[in-house]
């Protein structure tokens, strides 16, 4: 896999507060990443550091293979952060032309990108006349001008109405389907669940989880089981290849699946071994439950 962004023990302190603590992860080409975390968990600070606007306190990061300076690497990156920043007195096209000059790309793609975000008919309107949703879409168009290797989006749906949120998500999905690597920071879990394949979960500047959404989601689900002889049941489950973690929860056992298995199969297998279940439920955890679980454990 070709790596796009590598972080090594990145740390940022604002006076006594540590906003990002020893953060390490790698972004690989072709995946859609989500950075999840409650407000103030260091998402924007992390993005600010790799985007050259916030100075790191410690650690290191590099773009691509690390051979180029950060600002040159950023010419191959498209990024929008928090809220769209453009010159209010310029029109959409003039603003995008300026971005082209900074990135050193031809201005020929402006119309095409405006079309992608559905702003072509407003291309000669001044930026200050735009609604928030339009501003956000213009920001996406601007980030796409250089056909970036990676698109970085920080809270792209913040403050938008449901229609605006929907529009932005559709655009993101469309871009992702074309194979562009995306890094999406958000505190909206369903947003990340819907769009991302990988997640980095942050809390108070520390990484709690890095990996695929599926793994985190325990996508095979888990069983909640009860039998008359709990000891035998537990031994049996521990010896079963299909299960990973097994934990006691009150009178029941919770067994996490490592491979897909449906409830009737398990029931049949256990009965053949003489274990009769009095309680059998199969469930799937939502990302939200997982997230709350992860962040709760560390309190």
């Amino acid at each position: 896999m070709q790596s796009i962004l590598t972080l090594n023990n990145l740390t940022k302190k604002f006076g006594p507060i540590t906003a990002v603590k020893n953060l390490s992860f790698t972004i690989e080409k072709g995946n859609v990443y989500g950075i999840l975390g409650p407000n103030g968990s260091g998402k924007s600070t992390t993005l600010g550091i790799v985007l050259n606007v916030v100075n790191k306190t410690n650690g290191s990061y590099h773009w691509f293979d690390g051979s180029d300076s950060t600002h040159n690497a950023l010419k191959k990156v498209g990024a929008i952060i928090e809220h769209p920043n453009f010159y209010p007195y310029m029109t959409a096209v003039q603003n995008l032309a300026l971005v082209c000059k900074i990135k050193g790309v031809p201005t020929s793609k402006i119309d095409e990108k405006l079309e992608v975000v559905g702003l072509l008919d407003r291309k000669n309107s001044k930026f200050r006349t735009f609604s928030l949703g339009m501003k956000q879409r213009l920001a996406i168009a601007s980030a796409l001008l250089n056909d970036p290797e990676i698109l970085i989006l920080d809270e792209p749906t913040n403050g938008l109405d449901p229609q605006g949120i929907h529009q932005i998500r559709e655009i993101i999905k469309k871009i992702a389907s074309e194979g562009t690597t995306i890094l999406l920071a958000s505190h909206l879990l369903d947003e990340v669940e819907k769009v991302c394949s990988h997640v980095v979960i942050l809390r108070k500047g520390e990484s709690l989880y890095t990996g695929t959404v599926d793994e985190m989601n325990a996508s095979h689900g888990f069983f909640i089981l009860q039998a008359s002889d709990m000891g035998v049941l537990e031994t049996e489950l521990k010896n079963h290849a299909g299960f990973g973690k097994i934990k006691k929860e009150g009178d029941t056992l919770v067994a996490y699946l490592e491979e897909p298995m449906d409830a009737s199969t398990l029931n049949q297998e256990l009965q053949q071994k003489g274990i009769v279940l009095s309680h059998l439920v199969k469930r799937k955890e939502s990302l939200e439950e997982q997230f709350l679980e992860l962040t709760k454990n560390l309190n």
Partner: protein
Amino acid sequence: MLRLLNIELQKLRYNRSAKVISIVYFVLITFIALIASIEFPLGSVNFRVADQGIFNFPFIWHFNTYVAAILKIFLAIVIVSMMSNEYSYRTLKQNLIDGLSKKEFVLSKFITVIGFALISTLFVFIVSMILGLSFSDYNEFGIIFSDMEYLLAYFIKLVGFFAFCMFLGILVKRSAFAIGFLVVWWIVESIVYGLLKWQFFKGTDIAETISQFFPLEAMSNLIKEPMTRLGAVQSAATQLGENFTKSYDVTFLNVAIVLVWTFLFVYWSYAILKKRDL
């Protein structure tokens, strides 16, 4: 280089207030020519300012650069706001994210500053040339092109002053406050000079020796006031028993001081930007 200038010009081109003030500034420079038409009756003769020798080569270089330099405050507003707008629109952040380095950002502003100073100098040159050729008593080639160092001094004075404005714009982040800071700075320089002159080093020249290193004082020392150099004023003064024996030359020391300040302002602008989290 050209790319950076191009980026900055694109930002200025569509900014209506910047455009209006710049145009007003350059129009005002050409209006120096209007001084020529001032005339008032003095007894039985008609007194014409243009006939008093202010448009004589090479004195005109001194006079026009001095007068034109007063107008620089107009461009100062444009420069301060072109810095602070980047903060208030948060476009500085966006520029950096789009792949401009902090060094390139400061350079693009400084190149624009030099551009403004160059065009101003060119304007003053053209206006002076036209006025001089119409009114000067001496039109020999050698005289016309003597004392040209005033144009150089004018250019350096503008670059230094605009670099100061640029630095204040980055430091203070708000145009109005940055202009206010400029005024406060000027007052502080005057107070410090006053204290040195009338309190600590009374009756000596030490105050001047120190104050020539102050940035604004150094800039104003580049082109000294030309009024007392006029023939009419000099003869009037002689009759009153006063004698002006000061030098009106552009000195190397003054040029050097302003150049050092210019370098410091640009460097500090970069240093602040580098240190700041946006």
